[in-house]
């Protein structure tokens, strides 16, 4: 249902300003200037890139352990780290300004998302709790996507410095996914504190992650005219609507499940991205008198 609604919004947003559907524009040719006529049709293309920080929102938590009577659950829940691990993204910007200050933007990019959580388990002597064995797990997930965001951008100023706001949706195609696990332990039951079972694993989880992700996106930014181009900076926030875990594969045995005792939760991915961009007007002009900037 969410997917259908998102598709509908995208189609409506993209087709609504289409000049091919507009009536009565065929014989209207006016010179286009920066501060003049509002009926401007201009394509912009450019490159963009930056860093991003992700947060996994847990919809349902899972564990390989099921505790029997007398056990305390306490510390044995995953603790997610929010917006701490940087990822990178780079790609293109394709905009169609159909009304002065209002444009539709496609921002295809290749993006790397990272997030992590910690977990620990302990066992102790029932008669002397200071004698214990603790095992700690730090699990980082790295997801690589081809992103296809689609936004509508509104510029708040007509000057060279153009702050703007934008909103829309995105769809992403998974290209790679791995989990890195760092396992450490402390043995406090053998006479002194000693480190045990230091292990590092790197396991591919592409088959355990859904191929497609989608959500809504919104952000703010600005551009500044420099010569025949515009340079810009923007901050976007993505809110994921899709549970990314491939449920059918959740408990299929591998090194993570029976080795590192890690079972993935149902989660969606939120992301804060900071981007720089450089865009230039495509010479797709509608009039020989057009002055792009």
């Amino acid at each position: 249902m969410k997917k259908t609604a998102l598709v509908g919004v995208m189609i409506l947003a993209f087709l609504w300003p289409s000049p091919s559907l507009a009536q009565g524009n065929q014989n209207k040719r006016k010179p286009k200037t920066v501060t003049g006529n509002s009926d401007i049709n201009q394509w912009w293309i450019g490159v963009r890139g930056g860093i991003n920080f992700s947060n996994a929102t847990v919809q349902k938590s899972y564990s390989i352990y099921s505790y029997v009577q007398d056990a305390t659950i306490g510390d044995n829940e995953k603790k997610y780290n929010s917006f701490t691990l940087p990822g990178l993204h780079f790609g293109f910007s394709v905009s169609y300004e159909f009304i002065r200050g209002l444009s539709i933007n496609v921002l295809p990019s290749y993006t790397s998302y990272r997030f992590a959580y910690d977990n620990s388990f302990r066992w102790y002597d029932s008669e002397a709790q200071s004698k214990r064995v603790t095992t700690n797990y730090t699990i980082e997930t790295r997801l690589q996507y081809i992103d296809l965001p689609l936004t509508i951008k509104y510029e708040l100023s007509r000057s060279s410095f153009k702050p703007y706001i934008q909103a829309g949706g995105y769809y992403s195609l998974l290209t790679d996914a791995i989990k890195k696990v760092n396992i450490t332990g402390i043995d406090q039951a053998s006479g002194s504190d000693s480190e045990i079972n230091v292990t590092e694993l790197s396991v591919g989880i592409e088959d355990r992650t859904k191929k497609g992700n989608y959500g809504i996106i919104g952000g703010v930014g600005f551009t500044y005219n420099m010569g025949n181009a515009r340079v810009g900076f923007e901050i976007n926030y993505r809110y994921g609507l899709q549970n990314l875990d491939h449920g059918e594969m959740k408990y299929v045995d591998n090194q993570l499940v029976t080795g590192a005792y890690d079972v993935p939760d149902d989660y969606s991915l939120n992301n804060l991205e900071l981007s720089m961009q450089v865009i230039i007007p495509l010479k797709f002009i509608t009039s020989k008198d057009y002055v792009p900037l």
Partner: protein
Amino acid sequence: MSHCNYRKMKISAIHISFVLLLTLSIVSCGNEEDFIPDSSFIKIYNDEFFESSYIPMDIVQAGNTGYFILSAYDAWNTYILRVDEDGEYMWDYKLEDNYVNPIKGLYYKDSAFYFFCMDDLSLAATLMKVTDQSKTAQVERTYGNIIYPLHSSAVDDGFLLESYNRESYSTRLTKLNNDFGIVWEEEYEVEQDVEESIISHLTRIGNRLPFFSGQAGNKYFLNGYYNYSMSMLFVNASDGTQTGVINGFRDKSAISSAKYLDGNSYALSRFDFGENFIIPKIDLNTSGTGISSDLEGNEHPEMMPNAFVYSQIIDVNGREITMYATSTKGGQILLYAYDAINGTLVGTHHLGRLNPYEAIDFVATNDGGLAVLGNTFVNGRFSRITLIKLSEKELIEFAN
């Protein structure tokens, strides 16, 4: 065509193409299933006390309400665990210290669970009854003349209970009816005192021995001490009189598992001084004398020396499969699937990574999957019960 019209067509084409591409991308991808909790899971039943040690014995599915697991606890004490259809803990119970030695053979009848254990003072076999309402084990019946219970199994019209008689140095087989009443008893001479080996087996401080029993048409078979060695006996179902035997050698060479197929055919496994052999289909003379080491079979060097093996005939997507579960030298559970008709290997499946996992039992589940009961050593040291539920799809992938 004018330049203007051409340009508008180009814009229109780009718009429509892009929207279509975007729409196709969205609707064509991401049809992966969300998680179905009871179809596939892996659970380790954890206890935070590191002096605790659990060694599972048997499992039975309780309709659509989950599973019941029988286990030994801290060597040979008795522990019962009830989990739901998603493998999550429901309740558990540790029997009083005098009820020890839970043996293989777990039955779900009339919404109650039954199993045998032993009184540690009298050594008498004791039948226990457990219900979800009581959440405890109650003594249903005590068999004072049956000591050192070793194994039980279900047959068409009741149950078999194998035990060791220390007075007569004999392996005893008792036939019970559906209400666990005694029908007949028969003894088979060992010719020497093997009580020490029996105690080492029961208390888990020594070698675990491959006791088992079952039905083969109008006969029963049992594996136990006979004539100085672990041997497989064939007896008449009507009165327990012996008809044939496959002799082992001491406890170094013996049959490790057996399942009746049809006619004179059996699916066997055996070990021979550390080596293991799987024999998915072989005709046996149940009216004569044979030697286990003479039975031809495929050697499996990946299995643990003198490995414990559990086998069953199950239906996988309409195909009869002889499934063997055993443990490897690498610390994994290993499932072999053989065609029960022609004995050909259909596939194998490994379970368990990094930490040691041992196969104990499995049961074909109501949804066409397989629930595998195992023993694992968490962090390489803490002995715990593990239950691995394979979905029907996972089972078909390697066993059909």
